[in-house]
């Protein structure tokens, strides 16, 4: 069993699996059950300022995208921050932290965009003994319309300003949670860093409409005949989240800034991928909401077995390991040539590769009258589409061509590494010899 203990910006937890700020962390009852199940930490459901709490809709608040057997692929919600009184939350946080000293407990906060509001809330949470705060600049619905959440998160200057206030009025470690509803995720991350944030966490949910009711002509979930956009999360958002994490991890200005990875983490493998791309730990919401707290047991055993297999003695061995291999398109090796190869022993002759290549790609697969499918090396551009549509794992593989061998498609020998920056077709190409 590998050592999974994690220290994220000085906050210790027995494993890198935290529950994200959301319904699973909205009260003591849930959080205690989560800790009993084995979660390493939680970010408490976002608190607002003193006063009457926000009100949620009483109609449905979730929409969903399913696979054929109703596997939940994506979830969207129009829930707001906690709708329980601040005082109740604070008492419960204190009681939980006292009972579970080895677990991480971070408080998520969202208050109006003025210094007094932030100063006040930070004071109120001071004696809970929580390990840190997470600033929720991400919530895309409801709160944004009141000048909070993603309304702040979409303006880097506000992020920097609020982060500065928080660091000024509190000694707690501060995580800034980013919204993905922005064109370049590096800008808010840079702003958080300038403001003094100890870490960023991402992603919060993505603006979305999951489906439209085609009888009542309203977005789902429908509340009394109307719907609104909600925040999208779950397995469907993972690719978007991974890219945003990688962008921050490899950006010169933010490189080294600790990242808490969020968005679609469902299995140990998802977690490991976020960590390889630079996340120090991960946070989970939808997977727990779909399957219950028990899933953390699979995450723990899976990550541990993987680390053992790889000979990693601590999570730090994994964190960021893939970052150097994330590059820009222009630096990819244009002289790397592969060809699709179909294993006839594994082929079940469905012809999907043929339909895909013949109809939509490069006409590089031949089909014989008795349904034998073969790749025409002289046409194959190695796009990988046949691999992606083939229902049989490893039936079609991409085989690299050795250096010096002639590529029958171009008639040229496979050469040494060379990328677009020096390519003759590139009008801006740098002349290599000069």
């Amino acid at each position: 069993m590998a050592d999974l203990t994690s220290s994220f910006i000085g906050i210790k937890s027995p494993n890198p699996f935290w529950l994200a700020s959301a319904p699973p962390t909205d009260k003591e009852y849930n959080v205690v059950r989560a800790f009993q199940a084995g979660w390493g930490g939680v970010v408490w459901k976002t608190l607002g300022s003193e006063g009457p709490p926000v009100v949620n809709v009483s109609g449905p608040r979730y929409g969903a995208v399913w696979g054929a057997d109703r596997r939940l692929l994506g979830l969207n919600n129009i829930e707001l921050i906690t709708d329980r009184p601040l005082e109740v939350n604070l008492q419960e946080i204190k009681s939980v932290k006292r009972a579970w000293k080895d677990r991480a407990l971070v408080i998520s906060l969202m208050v109006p965009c003025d210094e007094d509001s932030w100063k006040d809330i930070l004071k109120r949470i001071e004696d809970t003994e929580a390990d840190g705060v997470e600033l929720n600049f991400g919530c895309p619905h409801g709160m944004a319309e009141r000048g909070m959440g993603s309304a702040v998160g979409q303006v880097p200057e506000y992020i920097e300003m609020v982060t500065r206030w928080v660091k000024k009025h509190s000694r707690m470690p501060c995580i800034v949670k980013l919204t993905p509803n922005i064109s370049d995720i590096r800008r808010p991350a840079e702003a958080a860093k300038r403001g003094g944030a100890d870490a960023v966490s991402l992603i919060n949910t993505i603006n979305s409409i999951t489906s439209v009711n085609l009888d009542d002509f309203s977005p789902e979930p429908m509340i009394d005949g109307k719907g609104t956009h909600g925040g999208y999360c779950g397995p469907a958002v993972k690719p978007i989240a991974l890219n945003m994490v990688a962008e921050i991890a490899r950006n010169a200005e933010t490189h080294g800034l600790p990242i808490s990875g969020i968005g679609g983490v469902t299995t140990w493998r998802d977690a490991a991928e976020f960590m390889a791309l630079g996340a120090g730990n991960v946070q989970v919401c939808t997977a727990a909401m779909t399957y219950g707290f028990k899933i953390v047991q699979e995450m723990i055993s899976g990550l541990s077995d993987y680390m053992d297999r790889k000979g990693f003695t601590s999570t730090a061995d994994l964190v960021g390991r893939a970052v150097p291999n994330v590059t820009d398109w222009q630096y990819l090796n244009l002289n790397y040539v592969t060809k699709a190869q179909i294993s006839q022993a594994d082929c079940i002759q469905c012809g999907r590769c043929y339909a895909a290549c013949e109809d939509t790609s490069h006409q590089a697969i031949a089909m014989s009258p008795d349904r034998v499918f073969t790749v025409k090396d002289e046409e194959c551009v190695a796009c990988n589409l046949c691999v992606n549509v083939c229902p049989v794992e490893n039936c079609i593989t991409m085989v690299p061509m050795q250096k010096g061998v002639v590529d029958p498609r171009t008639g040229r020998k496979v050469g040494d590494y060379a990328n677009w920056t020096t390519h003759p077709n590139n009008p801006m190409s740098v002349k290599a010899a000069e």
Partner: protein
Amino acid sequence: MPNSQLTPGIVPGRLPATAYDRNFDDHLPALDAHEARVAADRCYFCHDAPCVTACPTDIDIPLFIRQIATGTPEAAARTIWTQNILGGMCARVCPTETLCEEACVRQTAEGKPVEIGLLQRHATDVAMASNRHPFSRGPATGKSVAVVGAGPAGLACAHRLAMKGHEVTVFERRPKPGGLNEYGIASYKAAGGFAAREVDWLLQIGGITVKCGVELGRDLTLADLQRDFDAVFLGIGLQGVNALRAEGEDLPGVANAVDFIADLRQSSDLSKLPVGRDVVVIGGGMTAVDAAVQSKLLGAETVTIVYRRGPEKMAASGYEQDHALQAGVRIIHNAAPFRVTGNGRVEAVDFAYTEDGPDGLKLLDEGFTLKADQVFKAIGQTLTGVPEGVMVAGGKIAATPARVWAGGDCAAGGEDLTVTAVAEGRDAAEAIHAFLTGA
């Protein structure tokens, strides 16, 4: 005392009254909407799909499955019916394990094909429940066509002709239309009076008059039809039955399996239908399996199928054979009956073992005797009542006079299956239409 499974002779009511409904209900329950979507999701939407090639009616299987997957079973049903108007019955009775499902690439890949038959049934059931017939008649052509036989071949032909706007009259010698769908198919394959419901639904297109109780050769001649109609289609199936050619086969208690099944299919109370205590079925096809399984379901104590060659030569598929075994039927291979014995009625059958060699089947000296109070002959149906002028070769209609077409079991080509009969009836209609319109 009421009868039981142990009562000797051929008697009714061997089982408790409640057993019959259960025994003769759908043997494969229908998929519900969710199950259908999950099953549909397994289809790979193959290019030039092998399942389509394997279907005698060329149903666009990947398309209809995709239509189910996207929540439009009615559209799926239209795809099916466009090629096969008896798609509902075929979904129930096709030996899919030797047709589309055998060809499915997932059969190759994992031995578990996409459940094409069950999916087809789902789509057609859902669409038929609305009781809206999806096709309409084309503009009237003023041409008339006689169809002889209201089996799958005749019905498919009549429907396609009606779609083209021709006026169709179907002549059927039995009291009800449907052919073997109504009188032959095992009841647990088409439970709930499906055959009759499907015929009613099919006729909703209009332009088809069915005249039951009218027999070609008895009530009218081919010449009459040729005179009164612009074209004639013969879909008369196989009305004769092969003889055992064993001593004593005329003893009471020996019957044709198809007659037993027809009685069973038409019985309104199965507890009143008599069956033997020890039943022996001779044959190796679907008829043998259906007679044997249904005897067992009626409460026979022992049921044995005896087939003269090995299991691989049986016309009943491996799936059908397993079905019989699971129902408690015993199957003995490589044995042939040579004598039926009994005092005034059948009591036993004497068998000789056989050897299937290069120069045909040889009876060996070794043999055995099976106790039997009922014996069913299921060794094949034969073509009878062929009108004059129609040429027969190899036991099937091989050529027809001008303006006469034939299809289904009575005609050469293809296996004797419901789906083949539908394909041939449909294609004959297209040929007739082309002929009548000079296209």
